[in-house]
């Protein structure tokens, strides 16, 4: 009797756990990249707003590059460039760096838009009341401008979360890569892809609805 060797095995409980771990990694890398990217982006946005033509000629085009080149190319380039200048980066770190800069380049525009949304007269009023420049930024521009652009910031953050799937090209095992690995073993692409997609959806949909409802509430 010939022994039958099975190359493929069905989906097991441990695989679900594997997917959950991978999903957690997706959340982690996104959260890290979005946090760093948002802080950087707000600083960049402020420079773009205050720096006038000097910033428009230097920082503007620099950030524009990250918005005009596909993220996947940026990732591959950076991952292959780091060893050239003597850095040995793991996929996670490279992914965070590029996702954060990419996020920052998008947030910079959003932040600048927020600062432009605060009327000049309001800021002059704040300054005439004796507020310092930073107090004006903190207590006037941040609450008013922040509200104006909060929904678009959520859009950017969700976009980065979804784009974090691309870090899988570097070999970082996040949700989509993990599901691909499982598909290779179990040969059940439809089921596993649906699970992965459902997870992204479950993460993204409520947040986008929440942002939309806030936008509606604040608009009225």
């Amino acid at each position, binding site marked *: 009797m010939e022994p039958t060797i099975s190359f493929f095995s069905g989906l097991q409980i441990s695989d679900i756990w594997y997917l959950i771990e991978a999903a957690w990694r997706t959340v982690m890398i996104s959260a890290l990249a979005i946090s760093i990217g948002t802080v950087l982006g707000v600083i960049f946005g402020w420079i773009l707003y205050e720096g006038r033509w000097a910033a428009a000629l230097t920082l503007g085009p620099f950030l524009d590059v990250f918005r*005009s080149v596909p993220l996947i190319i940026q990732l591959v380039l950076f991952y292959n460039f780091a060893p050239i200048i003597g850095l040995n980066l793991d996929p996670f770190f490279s992914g965070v760096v590029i996702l954060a800069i990419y996020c920052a380049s998008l947030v910079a525009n959003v932040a600048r838009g927020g600062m432009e949304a605060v009327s000049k007269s309001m800021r002059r009023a704040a300054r005439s009341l004796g507020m310092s420049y930073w107090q004006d930024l903190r207590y006037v521009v941040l609450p008013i401008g922040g509200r104006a652009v909060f929904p678009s910031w959520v859009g950017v953050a969700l976009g980065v979360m979804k784009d974090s799937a691309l870090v899988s*090209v570097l070999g970082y095992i996040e949700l989509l890569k993990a599901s691909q690995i499982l598909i290779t073993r179990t040969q059940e*692409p439809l089921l596993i892809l649906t699970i992965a997609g459902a997870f*992204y959806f479950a993460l993204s949909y409520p947040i986008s609805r929440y942002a939309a409802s806030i936008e509606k509430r604040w608009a009225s």
Partner: protein
Amino acid sequence: MFDYNFHWRPVMKSLPDLLEAGLTTIQIAVLSMVFGVIIGLALALMRMNMRGPATWFASTWIEVARNTPALFQLFFFGFGLGAIGVHLSPHTIVLAALSFNCAGYLAENFRGGFQAIPETQIRAARSLGMTAWQAYTRIIIPQVFRIVYHPLTNQMVWAVLMSSLGMLVGFRELSGETQALASRTYRIFEYFAVTAIIYYVIVKLILGASRLLATRLFRY
């Protein structure tokens, strides 16, 4: 500091191939935008004006397209449909996934555009004796088009950037071609650097063309 010698010659030799692949990229982006606009328009109208299964269908499409990674959608059209016996060529997979994605995003843009136009205009058009079709094609759509022109341009840029994912399903557009060439010569950084520049130029060309077209279209 550099232990690495840059070799640009192989890249320059295959520059014609890269540029040709760039044309494929533009072609697939344009095609997916054409499909995206048509389907997106239909989805927006279905979501706004119909009840029952049609609305449900349109909403599902739009929300799935917007709340899952484009890469997931690509894999779904690739491996997912392959599992149920629908085998598509890489070209079709990329085109289908991109159109699916674009349609979802554009539908929301169109919906915003439609909502910005007062309903009284339809009634006015109808009372002038126009049929519903005439009212839509002659009064509403031209105005909506003007409102969504800018988002449409952005989406076109996104389509170009997203088409780079074709590399992961073996489609030879700009990124796929670059990867194939790079793995043959092992000059990954150099190849992808040139590809990044080509993408940048393509995006700038699209934005420039769009601006030029806008001055012609919206003169009055």
